[in-house]
Every structure is written in C-alpha cells, then in structure tokens.
C-alpha cells in the first residue's frame, strides 16, 4: 500500500504562542509555524492503515521552505518514509483552488497512491475545501468525516465509518474501491487491539527516530516545473478568490464590572451580601437574613 498524507503549516494559535498587533492582525513573524492540528488525524489514519497492511507513507505539503520543519513534525507523528515539499515563488498567495491544482500535480509525480489522506480544514483558513478540491482534480472516490476505517486488500476496497453532516449522533458506513481519497474527522481514533500491531508501531517509532534526525535526506523539494504545472494556474494568478478586505472580529464588550473583595474584610463582604439581596429582590433578601439568624 502507498499512502500519501497532505499537511499544512499554520500559525501556532495556542495561548502564549500566537501574537496579534494592536488592530488584532496576526503577527506572522512573531508567531511560530506548526503542523495544522487537524492533520494529525489524517496522519493517524494513514499510520493505522500502514500498521495493518504494511506499505509506505509519504507526506506532502505546499508552502515556503520554512515548512520543512512542519514535515519533520509530520514524520515523527506518522513515522513517514518520505517527505515532499512543493515550493516555489509562483505558488505564493494561492487560494484553495490553486492549492488543489498544485497538490494534485504533486501527488501525480509520486505515482499512483492507494489512499490519499487529508485533514479536516486548517486552523488558519478554516475552509475545509483543499482536500475535496484536490481530489476533484485527482478524480478518485472521496470519503469525508471519516472516524474509522478498514481496508480489504484482496478485494481492493475501503470501508469507512463517517459522520453524516459532521454530527457524532449520525454515523454511516460506506464502502468504496481503491484508490480513494479520505478526509479524516477530528473524531478519528486509531485502534490497535492486537499486540502485533503495537509491536509494529514500536518498531516504526524506533526506525523513525533515526530518520527524523536526518529528515532532510528523505525530503524532496519540487518547484512548478518539477510537477509540470503552468504558472498561470497556480499561486495568486491561478486563484479566482478575491479577498476584498479582512475585518477583525471586535472584542465582546464587557457589560459587567468586577470588583475584587477580600473575604477577610467583613465590611466589604457585608456590601456583597447587600448587593446580592438587592439583586434578587427584597423577599429573598428577608429569607436570607432570616436564615442567617
């Protein structure tokens, strides 16, 4: 089996990592780039497939040279065999459409993978388009919102459980032929119920430790010529989406005032009690006072 997993570098939006300027604009230079958190589930799905059926996992991303680190992170998560970065100035400022064209061309240079995996939307764009649009170019059966999956190698089929309308309450099982394109849902949970699977996982982890240290030896960087795409169809030139403006979401106005009260300060505590009484009305206040006697 040959699996390809798509990933993207995104700003690290976690508290303490992310940095915004006064107008609420992301400060890209001050915010580290990490692997898109949702891609972890795609990687886990590929890993599970590999543990059960063997084969090779390739990880691909489109982005600036700095994304190499993101690919290294992906390698450590999925114990990937090889990494692929499609990177070129011509690809800059691409929308999801141009990205899909670029990625699908990249995937085609890797041969004919059995399954392509993508995560459910990125933490920055939040569109959820890139995976399905890439597959539109590849023209394989597409299964989205996958929470578990099984492959029948002999039959050449893939059976998946998926959320209907993204709702955990409604799950359907679908079956399709390979090759196929799988978008893993954040509810995806890998399952390793045999000792054999866990031992294979342990072997892979051990093997990958050495590989991840010299990950650049396993990394191929390709530009638009290498993947054979016309620069007019990628990057800004190939992007039909026009972003007219970006408005910061205003902070929710604080409607309440807060006062800190020292619980040891009896006078202040008395005021708190008075405020509570007036807030709930006099009747309740009388009841509270009576209870206090």
């Amino acid at each position, binding site marked *: 089996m040959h699996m390809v997993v798509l990933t993207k570098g995104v700003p690290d939006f976690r508290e303490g990592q992310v940095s915004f300027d006064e107008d609420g604009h992301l400060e890209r230079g001050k915010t580290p780039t990490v692997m898109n958190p949702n891609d972890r589930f795609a990687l886990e799905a590929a890993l599970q497939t590999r543990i059960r059926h063997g084969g090779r996992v390739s990880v691909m991303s489109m982005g600036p040279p700095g994304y190499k680190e993101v690919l290294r992170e992906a390698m450590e998560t999925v114990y990937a065999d090889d990494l692929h970065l499609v990177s070129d100035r011509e690809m800059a400022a691409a929308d999801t459409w141009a990205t899909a064209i670029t990625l699908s061309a990249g995937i085609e240079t890797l041969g004919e993978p059995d399954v392509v995996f993508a995560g459910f939307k990125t933490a920055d764009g939040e569109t959820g388009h890139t995976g399905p649009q890439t597959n539109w170019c590849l023209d394989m059966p597409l299964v989205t919102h996958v929470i578990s999956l099984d492959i029948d190698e002999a039959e050449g089929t893939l059976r998946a459980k998926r959320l209907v309308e993204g709702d955990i309450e409604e799950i359907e099982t679908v079956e399709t032929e390979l090759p196929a394109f799988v978008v893993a849902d954040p509810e995806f949970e890998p399952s*390793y119920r045999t*000792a054999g699977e*866990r*031992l294979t996982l*342990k072997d892979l982890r051990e093997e990958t430790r050495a590989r991840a240290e010299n990950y650049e030896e396993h990394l191929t960087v390709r530009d638009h010529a290498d993947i054979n795409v016309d620069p007019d169809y990628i990057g800004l030139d190939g992007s039909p989406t026009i972003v007219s403006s970006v408005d910061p979401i205003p902070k929710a106005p604080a409607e309440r005032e807060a006062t800190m009260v020292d619980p040891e300060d009896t006078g202040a505590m008395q005021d708190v009690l008075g405020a509570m009484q007036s807030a709930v009305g006099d009747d309740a206040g009388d009841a509270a006072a009576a209870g206090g006697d």
Partner: protein
Amino acid sequence: MSDYEHYEALVVGAGPGGAAAAATFANYGIETLVLERGVEAGSKNVSGGLIYAEESAPYTIDDLFPGFREAAAERPITKYRIHNIAGDKVESFDLTDLHEHDTEWSDSVLRRKMDSWLEDRVHERTRETGGGLLTGVHVNGLLREEGRIVGVTLDELDPITADIIVAADGVNSELARDAGLMDWDEPDEWFQGVKAVVDMPEDAIADRFDVADDEGAAHLFSGDLFEGVRGGGFLYTNRDTLSLGTVFHLDSLVAEEAEPHQLLDALLTHPLLAQWLGDDYTELEYSAKLVPDSKKVALREPHFGRLLLVGDAAGQMQAQGPIIKGMNHAVTAGALAAESYAQAKSRNEPEKAGTRYARKLRSEGVMKKLRPRGYELLRGVAEDDGVTDVVDTVLTSAVGRAGIRALSGRLERLYNVPTLSALMPDTRTPYVTLPTVIAEELGTRVRDQSSVTPPDLEARIGGLTYDTDIGNPHITLRDESYEASGAAVAACPVSAVDFGGGCYREEVVRTNGSEERVVSLDTQPCVECGTCAVVADTEWTHPRGDKGVEFKWG
C-alpha cells in the same frame, strides 16, 4: 481453538521476575510477548531495595543481563549494620557477616532506573523471537476455554492465547487471584513497606557514611521507636540519593491503628539519623508497597495448568528479621519457570512445566529459603500469645536484663547466624522487646539532635505523578461500613484519620435520627500498594495501562 492472537510464551509484568523469565525464554528461542501495565517498566514498582546475587542461586540478574551492575544498579553494599533503639539509647551490631553469607554481591537499586534498563534489553531479545515487550497494557484476567486456562484478557487489547503464561505481575497479582492460588484475606500474611527517596550529593554520602565510590552502607533499625508496631526501618545509600523506609506486619499496623507515614517520620526524625540526614532534608518521592511474607504465603506449587507464578505474585519474598531478599528470588524463579517450560516442551510434555518448575524451586534450594523448616516447626509454640507474653516478661525482668548483659559480647555474633534469623517468630519479641532491652541495657546515648522536618502527607501525595482514569476508579468499596473497611483509614499509606486529601475517609451519615460511621473512598491519590484489598472489603484491580500513579524513582 478460536482465532485469537497467539504467542508461544506470555510474560505478564516487566519487573525482575518477568525480565528473567523473558530473557530465558528468548535464550531458548521461544517466541515471547511481555506485557507491562506501567508507562515504562519500573514506573509501578517500589522496593527497599537491595538486590542480591546469591552464590547458591542457579540464576542471578547479571548472569541473565550482562552489565546490569554498572548500568542499572546504584552502589555495592559493603557495610551492613543493625541498630537496637530504646528512646535515645542505641546499641549497634555489625551484620556484614550475615549480609555476606552466600552473597556474591549485593547492590542498592532504584526500580525506575533498574527496570527501565531491563525493559530495553528484554524488548530487544524477545523481539528477535517474534514477540517483544509492550508497556501501557493491563492484563486483567485469565482466558479459559472449556474450563482450562488458555490465555489472558486485557483492558487495551483483544484476548491473547499462549502455550505458557508466566505471571510476574507482583504482590497484588490479578492472575494469581483469578486462578485461585492467592487471596488477600489474612493481614498477618503481609508486610507493608513505606519509603522515602531522599536527595543527597555523592560527596555528602561519602562523607557521612564513610564509603568510597564503589562502596555503600545499609542500616536497619528496630526497637521502641515505632509505637510497638512489629517491624523495623532501613536506610540504604544509592549513588546520589538515600532510600529510607519502614516495614511492618500488616496485622500489627491494623491492631495498633498506626499511621504508616507517621512511623516513617519517627524513623526520619530519630536523633540517631541526624548524623546522616544533616539539616538539608529533601524528599524526592514517597511510596509504598505490600510485601508477602514467604514463610506463610510462598506457594509450594505456584502453577495451575499453563500458568506459572513467579516473584511476589507467588509470595516469593524472604523477609526474615534482618534478611530481606525478594528480587533475587524473583529472578531465579522467573528463569526456572522459563527453563522448566523449555525442557518440558523438548520432552513433548509441555503440560508438565508447572510441576517441573515447582520441583526445581525445591531442588535448587529456593523453597527452603522462602519457607525455612525450623520456622514451621517452632511457629506453633513461638507465636502463641501466651508464650510471647512469658518470653517478654522474662526478657524485660531483672533476670532477662542480666542475661542480655551477660550475652553482650556474643549478641552481635548471634545476630549474624543466618539460621537464627530464619527461625525468628512473628511476634513483638524479636522486633520490639528484644532490641529495646538490648538498647536499654547495653546502648549508649545519642547526643545529636534531629533537624529533619519531613513533608506532611498532603505534600507527599502532591509530589507524586498521577494519570487519573477519571470516572473509572480501579477500586470500589464493597462494604462501606466502618466495621468492614474502617481499618483502611489509618493503614492506607496515603490516608490518615482526620485528613481529607487521602484515599479513605471516615464519615458520619445521619439517617432516620441515627448516626452511622461509614468509610468513603477516592482512588485519585492511590499508590496501588494493595493494603486496602487486605484490610477493607473492596473490589480491587489495578488501573488500566498507563493510568494511576507513576513512580519516578521507585
């Protein structure tokens, strides 16, 4: 047979017993899977701990794992002393002869470091057989087909079958209990040990214990410093830490309603220890463990069908006065168990592995050490309450005291006779009365003052690492009445009377105008020692793999 995943040999538990079994299976080329419930081998383990290599043992840990002493142990123990204590009077005996009897070497160890080192070697060697070692996997019971044991059931994995199963899953072995070979019924069959690992720079250890780089000291303590509870204390030097602890008979702890952490504190703050602990006491870890008393519970036939028990799971822990040996017996037993299967299989009678293993435990002298014949013969008389009272009355009388004084020159020699230690009855006489009288009559006063302030129980619990299995407590109370389970409030090493942050608490419930004393349980601070399985009425299991307490030192 159903299409379960199958391995030829299955070893449950990656302590020294499991490691020895696995390495021996691998030496015979037998496909071996080892399952350990901790995040890493050693993370669930606590021992005193000294490990011995006995001259008479057929297998030792460094035979099976070359390089063990250099990589996984702390210090060779070259000094061994016991201190008889009465108030601030102390009479010390040198027990190095006893310690060196039948001893090739003996090292202090810390279990996290030791067992995790073994884990890597065991995985490497069993992987070559087609098996391997997995952590974070909890074996919770036996798989039977038509009434016969064929494998195990697990929390994390589907059932696994095997031709031979070695249960090295410790003192609270769930497999031994599932097979009906062990129970948790009698408190007098168990000891409870609590331990503190204390930070100390190497040069301070060299200085205070007068030991060179390749030397170490062990000190034992007995007498009147433990409120009359039967047991004693120990101090072992590690590379740059100390292991200090106390070990008591569980029935005595319960009878005296003693708090284990306070008894440990009584040792830590005794003036005798001031010379070693100084005034910069830093406790790194508090831990506890149940210890089987092999004299009473070591199984003569530790097997049932395909299941063989080794180490603590089989009660193979020799604690006879100042002789404290467990890990070495587990290693020997583990290797003998694996060897027995390999030999039985080569004779085409694998079903005889168990009887062969039990026979080897006898012929190799292991059983004789675990269950000394003299003790069995004397026990009926020596552990009679009336006899104990008479002996204690005589010992503490003017006549007894005169006798101790008359013996003074020979007492140290008598303490060094291994067969006498093996005969020691489990009464207050050898643990409390005799050492106290010795110290009173022969001891000298300690002038030092202790400046040690041990952390309180809350801080000790706070210092431990837990991965709590929220909403899935591994212990449940079957009977919450105080009569059935109240003893756990004091005896649990992470609970105390009038302490709300522990596992067990006493509560008063008012119903229909009457008051009832009940016990409530919160397993969050549990250190998985098993005390409450014995002294309270519980449904007791280990937590799932990777969950519960994680010892960093052990």
